[in-house]
């Protein structure tokens, strides 16, 4: 089946440093979504990207969708302690099964004050 690879698995940063996580699919996506899960919490939908080359921003977060619609990235500028958590990408594929999304394994963001 389809797979979405996400790297890195863990990322340690000092507070104030930038952070980036990457997702890659071997096949073209119809859209890609990003979720955040705080420690002890549940995944929360952040954003959906649909168009080739699309870039969206949410305050310090920048989301990009690749031109070929096979890869995506999430970049956080000047991390804060509130950014701690696991960031998941999830790809949607045209056709195939009805199960909707394929989640990446997530990137754990650990911030040292």
């Amino acid at each position, binding site marked *: 089946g389809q797979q979405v690879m996400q790297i890195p698995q863990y990322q340690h940063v000092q507070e104030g440093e930038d952070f980036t996580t990457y997702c890659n699919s071997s096949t073209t996506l*119809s*859209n890609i*979504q990003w979720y955040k899960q705080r420690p002890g*919490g*549940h*995944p*929360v*939908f952040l954003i*959906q990207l649909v168009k080739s080359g699309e870039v969206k921003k949410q305050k310090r977060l920048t989301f990009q969708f690749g031109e070929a619609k096979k890869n995506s990235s999430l970049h956080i500028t000047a991390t804060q302690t509130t950014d701690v958590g696991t960031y*998941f990408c*999830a790809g*949607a*594929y045209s056709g195939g*099964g*009805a*199960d*909707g*999304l394929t*989640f*990446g*394994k*997530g990137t*754990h963001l650990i911030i040292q004050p």
Partner: protein
Amino acid sequence: NAGVTQTPKFRILKIGQSMTLQCTQDMNHNYMYWYRQDPGMGLKLIYYSVGAGITDKGEVPNGYNVSRSTTEDFPLRLELAAPSQTSVYFCASSPRRGAAQYFGPGTRLLVL
């Protein structure tokens, strides 16, 4: 709207016991999902449903059963609990295939 609600929040089971994890959504979403998440790991799809009366297996369905008699409810049944089923279980709903999924707060299950 309450969104997606799950009960119980936490449960300890003995090996061989059975239980039902409840999930309810009030957003009139057709699609509903059950995931399990082991500590520090990603989400694994157990079962999903595209509407009342229709369910299908996900990646890890063994040891579980589901039913979908109404749009709102999607219970997950564990039969003969095993230590390998110790995990956090999340229910999610979505208005259509490939759209954003909205997760419940989860049920933490410990099988001893």
